[in-house]
């Protein structure tokens, strides 16, 4: 199959829903197959790439931050951007600007861009297919 362009819209904030993990797995699979991907993060999903996320210790279980090895989705976003580069694919990660400002999460990992719902519309027009993963 020739290179295609898939478009994903994510809405859930980090650390809340399995939907985010499934969406990331689909994006990962598409990139591994050499396809181009656009991700539009809307509402709480703009915090997925927030650069100031920090791993934390777990005092209840007596583990320090390294032992706890708490996953931060900003690292998954960065890993997907790296994977795209490795596979020769294009991953365009768009953060809804108004959603970012509302939440004060302007510092995003390198490689992401700020946009608006109009950019999602453009991506729908440009892509071969689109999936919207909504909140409930």
């Amino acid at each position, binding site marked *: 199959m020739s290179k295609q362009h*898939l478009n994903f819209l994510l809405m859930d904030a980090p650390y809340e829903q*399995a*939907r985010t993990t*499934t969406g990331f797995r689909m994006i990962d699979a598409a990139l591994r197959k050499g396809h181009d991907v656009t991700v539009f993060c809307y509402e709480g999903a703009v915090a997925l790439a927030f650069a100031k996320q920090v791993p934390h210790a777990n005092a209840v279980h007596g583990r320090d931050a390294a032992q706890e090895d708490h996953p931060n989705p900003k690292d998954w976003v960065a890993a997907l951007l790296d994977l795209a580069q490795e596979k020769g694919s294009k991953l365009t990660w768009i953060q809804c600007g108004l959603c970012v400002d509302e939440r004060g999460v302007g510092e995003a990992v390198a490689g992401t861009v700020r946009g608006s719902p109009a950019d999602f519309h453009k991506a729908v027009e440009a892509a071969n297919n689109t*999936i919207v993963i909504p909140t409930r």
Partner: protein
Amino acid sequence: MPGYLLIQSRDPMEGGGESFDELARSLASAKSGPVTLFLVENAVLPARKSAASARLAELAKSGVEILADEFALRERGISRDRLIPEVKPAAIDAAVDRMVEGRKTLWN
């Protein structure tokens, strides 16, 4: 062709899945292309033989291809031999492949 890809993430016991199943059935009966119901997350639970699995078996009889995310199955300790025969385990790649085919894709 190209047909439809319906991604179901909800356990029917939580509610909210019936209308999606009905959509799959009606799309299959309209014969406007292949229809795949891809079960992810807690939606894989009724893929085990249980009171809730009869609905999936009926859907398969109506012509809907039913796939279950093998990662979600493993997370929940559901081995392949516990699945009803109408449901096939599949990697998440299978969902991406169907998107690439141009299937209209909906998430529930």
